[in-house]
C-alpha cells in the first residue's frame, strides 16, 4: 500500500514535469518552428509601441537568444526559486513560485491567480456537491425503476442537460431568475463575496452558477450512475445480499452503489480537476472573477505569461485530482491495494 502511494506520488511529480515541458514548448518552441524570431517574441512583452531597438534589447535581456534548453531551465528555476525580469526599463522581481510576469500589467501572474482561486474553487466545489448528489440520486432511481415514467423523463432531461451549452442555460436562468421574468430571487452575477466574510452572501451570489453548472454535469453523472447500477444490480453478490435477508434499501446503497462507484469516482476526479483550472464558460457567462475569466481576458489581450500561468495551474489541478482518485481507488476497492 505504501509502495502504491509512493509510486503514484512519483508518477504525479513526473507528470507535472512533463506538463511544464509541454507548456513551455507550446509557448516558445512552436512559435519558433512557425517562423517567429527572438524579436517578435520579445515584442509581445514590451507592447506594440516599443521601437525596434527597444525590442532588440528586451529580447536579449529576456534571454530569447539563448538556446531553448537554457530558456527552459530558467523557466523551471523561476517556478521553484522565483525570477528577476529585466526587459529594459528596470528589473522586475517575480517571487517564487514564478508562473510568469505580465508585462502589460507589470505584475507577477501567481498572486493574481491566488486572488482568483477562491472564486473558481467555490464555484467548482459547490457545483460538484450539487451535481454529485443530484446526478447519483437520479441515476440510482432511474436504474431501480428502469423503463418507468420517471426513468424516461429523467433520462430525457439528462440528454438535454448534456447537450445544452452553459452559455445557453446560464443566460436563460439569469433571465428567468435574476432579471425578474418571472422571478428575481438570485444574484444577477458579476459579484463574489468570500466565504469567510459572509457565508450567506457567498452562497446567494453563487447559487445560480452552481445550479447551471451542476445541471450540465449532473446529467452525465445520472447516465453514468444508471448504467453502472444496472450492471452491478445484476451481479451475483447482489443476489447473495438479498438472500441474506437484507432490506432492499441496504442492498441498493451498501452493496449496489458501492460497486458502481468506481467509474463515477474516476470521472468526478477528472471533472473537478478540470474545473478548478477555470470554469471558463460559466465564469464568463456569470461574469465571475475566477481563473477562467482571467484566462479569457488574458487571451483577448494577448498577455502570454498569464495564459501560460493559467495553463500550468490548470494542469496542476488535473494531475493532483488524478492522484487523489488513484488513492481513493485503493480505499474503495481493496483489490487495488495489492498493486
Amino acid at each position: 500500500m505504501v509502495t502504491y502511494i509512493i509510486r503514484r506520488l512519483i508518477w504525479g511529480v513526473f507528470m507535472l514535469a512533463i506538463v511544464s515541458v509541454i507548456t513551455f514548448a507550446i509557448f516558445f518552441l512552436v512559435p519558433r518552428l512557425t517562423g517567429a524570431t527572438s524579436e517578435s517574441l520579445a515584442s509581445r512583452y514590451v507592447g506594440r509601441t516599443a521601437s525596434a531597438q527597444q525590442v532588440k534589447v528586451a529580447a536579449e535581456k529576456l534571454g530569447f537568444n539563448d538556446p531553448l534548453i537554457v530558456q527552459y531551465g530558467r523557466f523551471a528555476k523561476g517556478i521553484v526559486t522565483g525570477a528577476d525580469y529585466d526587459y529594459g526599463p528596470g528589473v522586475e522581481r517575480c517571487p517564487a513560485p514564478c508562473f510568469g510576469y505580465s508585462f502589460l500589467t507589470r505584475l507577477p501572474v501567481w498572486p493574481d491567480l491566488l486572488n482568483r482561486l477562491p472564486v473558481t474553487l467555490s464555484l467548482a466545489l459547490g457545483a460538484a456537491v450539487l451535481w454529485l448528489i443530484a446526478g447519483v440520486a437520479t441515476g440510482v432511481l432511474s436504474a431501480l425503476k428502469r423503463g418507468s415514467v420517471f426513468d424516461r423523463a429523467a433520462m430525457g432531461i439528462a440528454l438535454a442537460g448534456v447537450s445544452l451549452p452553459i452559455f445557453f442555460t446560464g443566460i436563460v436562468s439569469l433571465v428567468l431568475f435574476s432579471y425578474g421574468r418571472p422571478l428575481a430571487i438570485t444574484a444577477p452575477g458579476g459579484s463574489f463575496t468570500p466565504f469567510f466574510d459572509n457565508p450567506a452572501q457567498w452562497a446567494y451570489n453563487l447559487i445560480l452558477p452552481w445550479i447551471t453548472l451542476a445541471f450540465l454535469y449532473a446529467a452525465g453523472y445520472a447516465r453514468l450512475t444508471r448504467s453502472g447500477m444496472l450492471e452491478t444490480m445484476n451481479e451475483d453478490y447482489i443476489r447473495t445480499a438479498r438472500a441474506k435477508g437484507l432490506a432492499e434499501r441496504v442492498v441498493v446503497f451498501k452493496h449496489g452503489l458501492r460497486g458502481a462507484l468506481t467509474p463515477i469516482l474516476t470521472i468526478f476526479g477528472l471533472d473537478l480537476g478540470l474545473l478548478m483550472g477555470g470554469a471558463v464558460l460559466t465564469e464568463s457567462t456569470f461574469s465571475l472573477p475566477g481563473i477562467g475569466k482571467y484566462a479569457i481576458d488574458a487571451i483577448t489581450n494577448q498577455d502570454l505569461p498569464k495564459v501560460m500561468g493559467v495553463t500550468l495551474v490548470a494542469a496542476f489541478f488535473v494531475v493532483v485530482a488524478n492522484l487523489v482518485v488513484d488513492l481513493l481507488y485503493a480505499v474503495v476497492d481493496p483489490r487495488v491495494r495489492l498493486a
Partner: protein
Amino acid sequence: MSFLELKDLRVHFPTDDGLVRSVDGLSFRLERGKTLGIVGESGSGKSVTSLAVLGLHKGTRAKISGEIWLDGEELVSASAEHVRTLRGKKMAMIFQDPLSAMHPYYSVGAQIIEAYRIHNDVSKAVARKHAIDLLGRVGIPQPDRRVDSYPHEFSGGMRQRAMIAMALSCDPELLIADEPTTALDVTVQAQILDLMRDLQQEFDSALIIITHDLGVVAELSDDILVMYGGKCIEYGSAEDIFERPEHPYTWGLLGSMPRLDRERTERLMPIKGTPPSLINVPTGCAFHPRCAFEPRTEGKGRTVVPELLETEGGHLVRCHLSLEERRATWENEIKPKLESA
C-alpha cells in the same frame, strides 16, 4: 405436513419474445434432516425454483403461482417483507461461484457479520466472535486472522467455505445449495461435499442441492428430482434414480457421462439435439424431439403432455411409455449398454 412442500409451483417471465415458463407445475416435499437433489441441464428451471423458494422473485416481473409451504407457512402469498425476515434466518442459500457471489469490496468477516446482525440484535463485537467461530467450524485455518481478509485473498475452496459459513450464520433450517462445487477443483469439491454432509447432520437441516452433476447428487442425496423444460420428469429415492431409472431422459443423462467406477465403454450414449428453449417448449412431452423412444408412443408424445404418475413406493415418472415397457427397456436395452465394456 412436511417441513417444505411445493404444490404446483409455476414461475413465468413475460418477455418481448413471449412467456418464458421457467418452472411449470412443480411439486415436491422435503423433511428436516433429508437431502433432495435437483438435477437438470441449463434452462431446466432448477435455479429459478430455488430463487422462488427464497422469495427472490418478489418484486420482479416474474409471475408466480402455486404454493410453497415452509414449516406450516405459505410463502407465495406472504408479503415480501415477511419473506425477507425468513431469508437468511430460516432458509439460506449457497451459490455456485463464491468469487462473484461475495462482494469484492467488503471483507469476508464483514459479510458474515452483516448476515448475522440482520436477524440477531447483537453488537458488532459479539457478531465478530460468532463469525470467527463459524469460519473455524467450516475448516478455515486461523479464523481470527482470516476474518479480516477479502474474498480475493481466499482460494476457491476457502471462499466456498466462507460462503457456507455465511449461509449457516443464523442456523437456517432449510439450506439450498445451487451448484455448490461446480467452480471448484475435484479434491476441493470432495472436501466441500464432506463438509456439507457433516454440517447437515450437525444442524439437522433440510438440504436441497441443485446441480447438473449426477455424481455430486449421488454423494449427498436421499431423494432426487430430475427436471426438464421446467417440469419434474422423474422423482424418486437415490436408488430409484440410479438403479431403476424409468425416464428416457434420465437414461440419457446416465449414458452421457463417462464413469470412473465402471469399465470404460467404447462409446458414450449422448442424447441427440439440445435442451429446449423455454419460449418454444415442444408440444406434448417436452422431451419428445430428443427421445429415442418417441415413435413407440404412437404420436402421443408429440401432442399430449404426459402426467407425473407414481410407479412404486414414491417413484414418480412423467412418460407415455407403459410401466412394463419402461422396465423392459431399461433392463434389456439401456442397462447392458451402460455396463458393457
